[in-house]
């Protein structure tokens, strides 16, 4: 890899981390966001734990099938929340009227998308 290419990759990584930092600052500044961040995974884990406990004590075919189904639903929910996080992070830029600043900065569209994808599972 040439020096120029390495420095381009490093710059790209810095811009992605800058966008992630922007969302981290946002998260830190807002307790409703932090509460939302803690609340949903907690509810899901407790629900999942109780169901697993129930299924473990009723290890019939239907219970196992139900367990698989619930696992699939949980996985779907993780993807759904990721997608929600992605959309909300993007809408946040529009809502705060910051999109113009971002579009005028050296941040490439793919770097913006990567930053949103990385931040969305949070």
């Amino acid at each position, binding site marked *: 890899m040439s020096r120029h290419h390495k420095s381009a990759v490093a710059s790209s990584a810095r811009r992605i981390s800058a966008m992630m930092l*922007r969302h981290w*600052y946002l998260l830190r500044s807002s307790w409703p966001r932090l509460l939302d961040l803690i609340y949903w995974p907690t509810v899901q884990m407790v629900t999942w734990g109780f169901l697993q406990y129930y299924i473990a004590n009723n290890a019939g075919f239907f219970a196992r099938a139900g367990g698989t189904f619930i696992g699939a639903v949980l996985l779907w929910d993780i993807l759904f929340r990721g997608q929600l996080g992605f959309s909300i992070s993007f809408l946040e830029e529009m809502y*705060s009227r*910051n999109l113009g*600043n971002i579009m005028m900065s*050296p*941040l490439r569209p793919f770097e913006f998308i990567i930053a949103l994808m990385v931040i969305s599972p949070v």
Partner: protein
Amino acid sequence: MPQSPSIAVERLVKIYKTVAAVDGISFSLAPGTITALLGGNGAGKTTTIASIMGLITPTSGRVSVLGAQMPQQRYRVLQRMNFESPYVEVPMRLTVRQNLTVFGKLYDVEDLRQRIAELGHELDLVDLLDRPTSNLSAGQKTRVSLAKALINSPDVLLLDEPTASLDPDTADWVRGRLERYCRDRHATVLLASHNMSEVERLCERVIMLKRGRIEDDDTPAKLLRRYGRSTLEEVFLDVARSNGGEAREAAQ
């Protein structure tokens, strides 16, 4: 040897469906100059600035900034450009320092802490650095936007009404800072403003747009002489309300 222009616009045309927002304008701006782009609503100022920023693709014509063709080569030069507009805000929930840190990193600014401290002193933001941007007054927010626009010490600075919502004293102070920045950095500034006294004070050249075309292009002093007026506001009204050519002839 003549300097190559920082911004060169050649026969720029931008048509939105059937409306020509910009209709074949050409101009070039030398490094270290402050130029105003004037015109009424719908004259084509925003489209021209958006073309210079590489945000829209012209229908025809060419725009180059610091030697890069826009929008194809915009990422070659965006690091050396910046802009400020009251219609675009920095995130309100973040503190001033956090905002400047994020934008400093986006522009890959070296020694970012020091740069933020410098801007804090230059724009009188030291006491505001750790306050959320949403808690600031309109004038303070404008100063923060200006700090964001200067974070990368740009060679080309595009300003859209930089002193909107500022009281006369602060506005004058901001103009002084802009003048000093342009002189020290030898930066090219293109300014869109409806504040004619600001244009008269800051700009050595005025480009007047009307219905997507350049109606006139000269120094403020020469425009005043040509139209036989005492203020740029009167010249602006002449151009906006009538045919510019007729107004000039009547004055002569």
